[in-house]
C-alpha cells in the first residue's frame, strides 16, 4: 500500500475512534443521571378516572421518588393498541390497567407477571377486595387462586336519569294518568321501556327529547356491553353451568332471544335518531346536551356527570340496571392493574402495586374519582352517603356478570358484535337466528382453541 494511502486510512481510523469515544463518554456520563430519575410507564384508557389516577400518582412519586409516566389511549383503540403492544412483547408499559376480558390471554401468554408470591410476601390478600372484582379482574383460571392483577378500578353498567324532569308535577300527573303508577326510577326493564316511551319525542323546555340512550356501537365492544344487561336478566347464559363450553340452549335459549328482541324494541322505540353506532362518549354527549331522559353508561363516568354544570347536581339521578323476568344482573366493567412481564422495571412496578393496595390510597382513589374495589373502602359505614351514586354502585357490584375472559375473547366479542348489530340495528333476520349463528361462531372459536365443545 502506498504511503499516502496508509496515512489517509490512519486518519479515518483515528477519526472513527474519536467519534466512538465521544459517544461512549456521553452515554457513560449520562448514566448516573438516568439512574437517579427512575420512571415507570402506566398504560390505561383515556377517560375521566385516568385523570384521577394521575393526581393519585403524584403521592407515589413523592413517597418513592419514582416518576410516573402515563400512556392513555382512547377506548375505541385501547384494546387494539395495548394488545398489540403485549403481543409484540413491547416495553412501552411497565404497569398496565388491562380490561377484565384480557386476563385469560394475558395469563396464558405470560404477558403479565403472576402476583401470588408478591401478594404473599407483602401480605396483600384478595379477601380484602370485593369478590366479583377478584374473579373478574385478577383470577385465571376463574375461581382459582391464581392472581395476575390487583383489582384497580371497579366498574359496572348503571343508569342516569333526569331527576328534575321526573320531579315535575305535570309530568308526574300525566305519567300516573297513563300508567297508573308514580314516575320513578325503573326497577324492571318493562318499567324502563314504559318511561322511555313516555318521554320519547316529548317537548321539554321547548326542546324535543328522547326516552333512553343505550349502547349500539359496532366496531369494538359497545353493543355487546349494552345488550348483555338485558340478556342476562332474560335468562341468557354463556354456557351450561354444569358443562363448560356447552352453549347450545343457553346462549340461544328462547328466553335469551326474547331479551334480544326487547333490546331491539327499546332501540327502535325510544332512542334518539342516528344512534346507530354509539358508545360511552355519545351517551355522555346525549345526556349532557339534555337530549335523553335516561342513559345507560359505566359508573366510571358518574362522578363527572354529577359535577356537570348543566345536568349534574340536583338534576341527575342514578339507578341500578333494571331486573328482567329471569333475574337481576348487570354487566361488569372495570380493570385490574398488572405488571407487564417484559418490563425492565418490575421491582418498581410491584412497589407501585404495593403502594396502590394500601387502604389510605384506595380511600383517596375513591374520593378523587376512581372506584376502589377494596372492602375497607366500600364496606365502610359512610360509603353509601359519600356520593349520590355510591349505593347504586355497591348494589351493582353485587350483581355483576362478565363476558368471556378466555384467551380468544376478542374473537368471541367481535362475533357477538356482528350478530347482535346485524339483528338490532341492521334488521337482519330474527333474534333466534342471530343467537343460533352466535353459538355456531363461538363453537368454531372454542374448537380452534382446542376446547371440547358439547353440542347438547
Amino acid at each position, binding site marked *: 500500500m502506498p504511503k499516502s*494511502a496508509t496515512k489517509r486510512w490512519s486518519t479515518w481510523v483515528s477519526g472513527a475512534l474519536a467519534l466512538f469515544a465521544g459517544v461512549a463518554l456521553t452515554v457513560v456520563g449520562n448514566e448516573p443521571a438516568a439512574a437517579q430519575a427512575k420512571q415507570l410507564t402506566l398504560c390505561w384508557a383515556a377517560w375521566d378516572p385516568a385523570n384521577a389516577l394521575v393526581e393519585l400518582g403524584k403521592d407515589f412519586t413523592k413517597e418513592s421518588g419514582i416518576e410516573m409516566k402515563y400512556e392513555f389511549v382512547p377506548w375505541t383503540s385501547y*384494546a*387494539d393498541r395495548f394488545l398489540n403492544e403485549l*403481543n409484540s412483547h413491547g416495553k412501552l408499559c411497565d404497569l398496565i390497567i388491562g380490561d377484565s376480558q384480557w386476563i385469560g390471554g394475558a395469563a*396464558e401468554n405470560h404477558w403479565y407477571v403472576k402476583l401470588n408470591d408478591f401478594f404473599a410476601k407483602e401480605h396483600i390478600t384478595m379477601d380484602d377486595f370485593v369478590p366479583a372484582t377478584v374473579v373478574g379482574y385478577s383470577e385465571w383460571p376463574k375461581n382459582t387462586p391464581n392472581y395476575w392483577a390487583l383489582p384497580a378500578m371497579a366498574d359496572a353498567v348503571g343508569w342516569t336519569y333526569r331527576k328534575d324532569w321526573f320531579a315535575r308535577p305535570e309530568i308526574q300527573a300525566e305519567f300516573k294518568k297513563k300508567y297508573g303508577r308514580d314516575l320513578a326510577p325503573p326497577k324492571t326493564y318493562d318499567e324502563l321501556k314504559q318511561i322511555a316511551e313516555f318521554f320519547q319525542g316529548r317537548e321539554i323546555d321547548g326542546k324535543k327529547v328522547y326516552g333512553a340512550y343505550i349502547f349500539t356501537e359496532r*366496531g369494538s365492544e359497545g353493543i355487546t356491553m349494552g345488550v348483555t344487561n338485558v340478556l342476562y336478566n332474560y335468562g341468557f347464559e354463556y354456557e351450561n353451568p354444569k358443562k363448560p363450553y356447552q352453549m347450545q340452549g343457553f346462549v340461544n335459549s328462547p328466553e335469551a332471544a326474547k331479551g334480544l328482541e326487547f333490546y331491539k324494541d327499546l332501540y327502535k322505540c325510544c332512542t334518539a335518531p342516528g344512534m*346507530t353506532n354509539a358508545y360511552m362518549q355519545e351517551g355522555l354527549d346525549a345526556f349532557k346536551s339534555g337530549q335523553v331522559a335516561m342513559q345507560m353508561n359505566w359508573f366510571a363516568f358518574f362522578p363527572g356527570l354529577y359535577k356537570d354544570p348543566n345536568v349534574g347536581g340536583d338534576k341527575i339521578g342514578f339507578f341500578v340496571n333494571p331486573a328482567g323476568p329471569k333475574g337481576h344482573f348487570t354487566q361488569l366493567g372495570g380493570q385490574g392493574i398488572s405488571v407487564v412481564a417484559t418490563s425492565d422495571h418490575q421491582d418498581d412496578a410491584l412497589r407501585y402495586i404495593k403502594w396502590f393496595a394500601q387502604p389510605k390510597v384506595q380511600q383517596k382513589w375513591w374520593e378523587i374519582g376512581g372506584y376502589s374495589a377494596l372492602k375497607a373502602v366500600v364496606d365502610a359505614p359512610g360509603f353509601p352517603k359519600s356520593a349520590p351514586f355510591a349505593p347504586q354502585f355497591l348494589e351493582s357490584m353485587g350483581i355483576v356478570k362478565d363476558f368471556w375472559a378466555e384467551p380468544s*375473547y376478542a374473537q368471541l366479542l*367481535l362475533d357477538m358484535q356482528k350478530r347482535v348489530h346485524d339483528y338490532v*340495528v341492521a334488521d337482519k333476520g330474527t333474534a333466534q337466528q342471530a343467537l343460533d349463528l352466535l353459538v355456531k361462531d363461538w363453537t368454531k372459536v372454542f374448537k380452534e382453541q382446542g376446547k371440547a365443545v358439547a353440542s347438547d
Partner: protein
Amino acid sequence: MTAIIHPDAPADRVGAQSPFRVARRVRGLSDRAIAWLFVAPTVALLLAINIFPLVWMIRLSFTNLNLSMSYLPLRFVGLDNYSDILTDEDLWLRLQTTAQFVISSVALQVVIGFGLALLINRQFRSHSFWTTIILLPMMLSPAVVGNFWTLLFQPQIGPFNYVVGLFTGIPPSSFSMTGEVALAPWTIVLVDTWMWAPYVMLICLAGLRSIPDYIYEAAEVDRASSLRQFWSITLPMTMPFLMLAVLFRAIENFKMFDMVNLLTSGGPGSTTELVSITLKRAAFEKWRTGYSSALAIILFVTVFGAANIYVKALNRVKQR
C-alpha cells in the same frame, strides 16, 4: 486497474457508464463493486420490507397461528385457511359488498370526473381557479374526510340532512345516512365520489389536452356535429386515460379502509363491511394471523390478476 464488465447486470451497466472511474479513487474496489454498493441499500430495503414479509406471510397462511393464543403450538394446516375462507358465506357477502362499492363509486367517479374535465377543458375565464377548487377534496386526508362527513351526516345537527329536508320536506332527523341499511352503502359511495372524482377529472383533462386541435379542425371541415366529434374523436382518444383512471380507482377502492371505517365502521350490522375491514378485524382484532395471511394473499392474487387482465385490455385500446 481493469474492471471486468458483464453488461447483463444493471449494476455493471451503471459502473461501465460512469464517466469517471470512481474505483480508482477508492482503493481495492472495482467499478462493478461500487455500482453494487450503490444499489445494495435499495435491494436490501426491498427485500426487507417487501419480499421478506410477503414470503413470511405465505408461510404463515399455511399455519394455525393466532397471536392472542401464541401459547398454542404452531401447526401446519395445509390449505385449511384457504378452504375456510372460500367456503365462508359471510366472506362472499363481504366480497359482494366490496364489488358493489367499487363498481358504483368508480362508475360515478368516471362519469362526474369526465364531465368536469370536459367543462374545465373549455378554458373559460377563471377555469384555473375552479380547477383548484374542484381538486381540494382529493388533497384531504381520508381520516379528515371520514370525520368531516360523519358530522355532516349527523341526523340532528348535520347540515346534509337539513339540506335534504329543505328540498324534500322530509324531517331532517327522520333518517340517518350512515345508520340505515338502505342508505349506508350509498353514503360511502357518495363520499368516495366527492373525494376522488376530481382525481379522475385530472387524468381525463390530461387526455383531453393531448388531442391535437387539427383533428377537431378537420372534423369541422367535414361538418361533423359536436356529438359526432365527441363519439368519434374525444371519447376514443381519451379512452386510454379513462381506463387508466378506472384501474387506479378500482385498485384503491378495492382496498379502501380508512374512510369507510370512520364513516360507518362497516355498519349498520355488516352492510358496509368491505373486505378490507374484514381483513383488519381478522388480523388485528381477532389476531387470527394464519387465517388473515391467507385472506390477504387471496385478495392480492385477485387484484393482481384482475389488474393484469385489465392492463392487457388497456394496451389493446392504446394500440388501436
